[in-house]
C-alpha cells in the first residue's frame, strides 16, 4: 500500500532547479535509501515531504492526504535531521517535555525506549549546549521515534554516532518497517545502511535517475555491493 506519493514535484530556488519533476511512490513496510552526490536534491526532496519547503511544481500525498497548509499530516512523521542543534540552555529532559507537549503526546503514549537504550536516562538534566555531537544525535533519534511514527525520515542517521548506538537506531528503523512503517534514509555511508534498504532512490542534479529494489540494482550491475554497483549502473542508465 502506498504511503507517500510524489507527483511531478519540482523545486526552484531563483533560477536553479534543485528538484525536477520527481514522480515516486514509497510504500508501507519498506526502507528506501535516498542517495546521490552532494547537491543532487536529496535534502530538498526530504524538505518538501516535511513541509519545510514548498514545491514549485507538483504535489505530495502522505497517507492519502495532499500536503497543504494543514500541518496535521506531520503527526505520522518522525524526523531525524543530519545536524541536531537544540536550544543550548535547555536540558535534555526539558527538550523531551517540550516536544512531547508540542506533539500532543502524553507520558504514556510517548515511546521513551530509546532514552534507555541509547544511555540518555542518566543525562536528562544535562544542558543541550554541553553535549557532544554524538549525544545530540542520540537525542535527535529519541525525538524521531518518540511519537511512534508511521513514516520515518532520517538524514545521515549514523553520522556522529558510535557503532553500538548506530546499530540500535538502525534496528529501530528495521522494526518500524516490520510494523508496516515507511522509512526514508539518506546516507553517504552506503555499507552501513544498504543491509537495511529494500529500494534505492538515486538522485542526480535534481532528477530521480532511478527508484529500484536493491536486489535489482545489484543484479543489473553484477556486483554484491551498492558502492560498486552505482558507478556501473550510472554508466549504463536504467
Amino acid at each position, binding site marked *: 500500500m502506498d504511503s507517500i506519493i510524489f507527483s511531478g514535484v519540482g523545486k526552484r530556488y531563483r533560477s536553479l532547479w534543485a528538484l525536477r519533476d520527481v514522480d515516486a511512490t514509497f510504500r508501507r513496510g519498506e526502507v528506501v535509501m535516498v542517495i546521490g552526490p552532494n547537491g543532487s536534491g536529496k535534502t530538498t526532496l526530504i524538505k518538501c515531504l516535511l513541509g519545510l519547503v514548498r514545491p514549485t511544481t507538483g504535489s505530495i500525498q502522505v497517507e492519502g492526504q495532499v500536503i497543504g497548509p494543514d500541518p496535521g499530516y506531520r503527526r505520522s512523521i518522525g524526523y531525524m535531521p543530519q545536524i541536531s*542543534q537544540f536550544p543550548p540552555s535547555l536540558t535534555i529532559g526539558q527538550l523531551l*517535555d517540550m516536544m512531547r507537549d508540542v506533539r500532543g503526546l502524553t507520558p504514556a503514549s510517548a515511546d521513551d525506549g530509546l532514552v534507555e537504550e541509547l544511555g540518555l536516562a542518566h543525562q536528562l538534566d544535562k544542558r543541550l549546549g554541553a553535549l557532544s555531537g554524538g549525544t545530540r544525535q542520540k537525542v535527535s533519534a529519541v525525538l524521531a521515534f518518540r511519537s511512534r511514527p508511521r513514516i520515518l525520515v532520517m538524514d545521515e542517521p549514523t553520522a556522529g554516532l558510535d557503532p553500538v548506538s548506530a546499530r540500535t537506531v538502525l534496528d529501530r528503523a528495521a522494526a518500524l518497517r516490520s510494523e508496516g512503517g515507511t522509512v526514508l534514509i539518506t546516507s553517504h555511508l552506503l555499507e552501513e545502511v544498504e543491509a537495511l534498504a529494500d529500494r534505492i532512490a538515486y538522485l542526480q542534479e535534481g532528477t530521480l535517475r532511478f527508484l529500484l529494489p536493491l536486489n535489482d540494482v545489484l543484479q543489473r550491475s553484477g556486483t554484491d555491493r551498492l558502492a560498486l554497483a552505482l558507478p556501473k549502473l550510472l554508466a549504463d542508465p536504467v
Partner: protein
Amino acid sequence: MIMGKVLYYTLVDLARNRSVVAFAALVLAVSEGLFLVEADPVKALLSLVQVMLALVPLVSLILTVVYTYDTHEFTQLLAVQPIGRRAILGGRMGAMALALLVALLFGLGLPLTVHAPGTTSLVLLVAVVLLAWVHTALGTLIALLHRDKARGVGIALATWAGFVLVYDALLMALLFAFSDRPIEPLVLPIAALNPIDLARIAIMIRVDLAAMMGYSGAVYQHMLGSAPGIAVALTLMFAWIAWPTLAAFRVFRRKDL
C-alpha cells in the same frame, strides 16, 4: 495551547542565555551608575533617557537577529512537527519580548523605583519596553528576510544607525531647507517614521524640558498637548510593533526553511 508551550520553553532557554543576562546586568549597571554619579535625580534621569534610547534598540535588534539565526535548526525541527508556523513564530517572538521585558524591569525598573519613583519614570520604562518590542519585531523580520547571518546583522546595525543618526540629520536638513515655510503639520507624520524619536517625544513631553524636547517633541506638545502628545506617541509605537510583526508572520508562513 501550542504557542504557549513554544513560548514557555523558549523563555526557559532565554532565561539562561548569557546575552540576555548580560543585557539586564548592563542596563542595571548603567542605570545605577548614572544615579550614583549624578546627585540630581532629574539630571540623572535625562542622561538615562539618552543612553537607553540608543542602547536598548541596538541590543534588542542584535539579540533578536543573532538568536533567530542561531536557533534556525531548532526552528526547522519545530516546523516539522504537526503544528502551524504561526504558533512557532508567535511563541518565539513572544518569548524574546518577555525576556527583554524582564531584563528591563530588573535593569531599569528597579533603579527607577528606588531613585526616581513617579510618573516620568513610568513613562520612561513603558517607552523603553515598547522600543525593545519594536526592535524585537524588526529584528525578527530582518532575520527572516535574509538567510545570511552576517548580512542580517549588518542590516540590523544599519537600521539602528538610520534611526539614531541618519534620521536626525535628515530631519535637520528638512527643517533647514523649508525654514521659511510652516512645516509643523509635517513634523507629526515625520516623527512617526522613527520609533526612537517617538519614545523620546513621549518621555520629554512628560519631563517638560524644552531644551531636551527637540523640534519634533515641541511640535507634538504644541499641537497635541502634553497627555495626548504622550498617548499619540505611545500609540504610534504600538503601530511600530504591529507592522513588522505582521510582516514577519507573513514572511515566515511562506518561507522555505
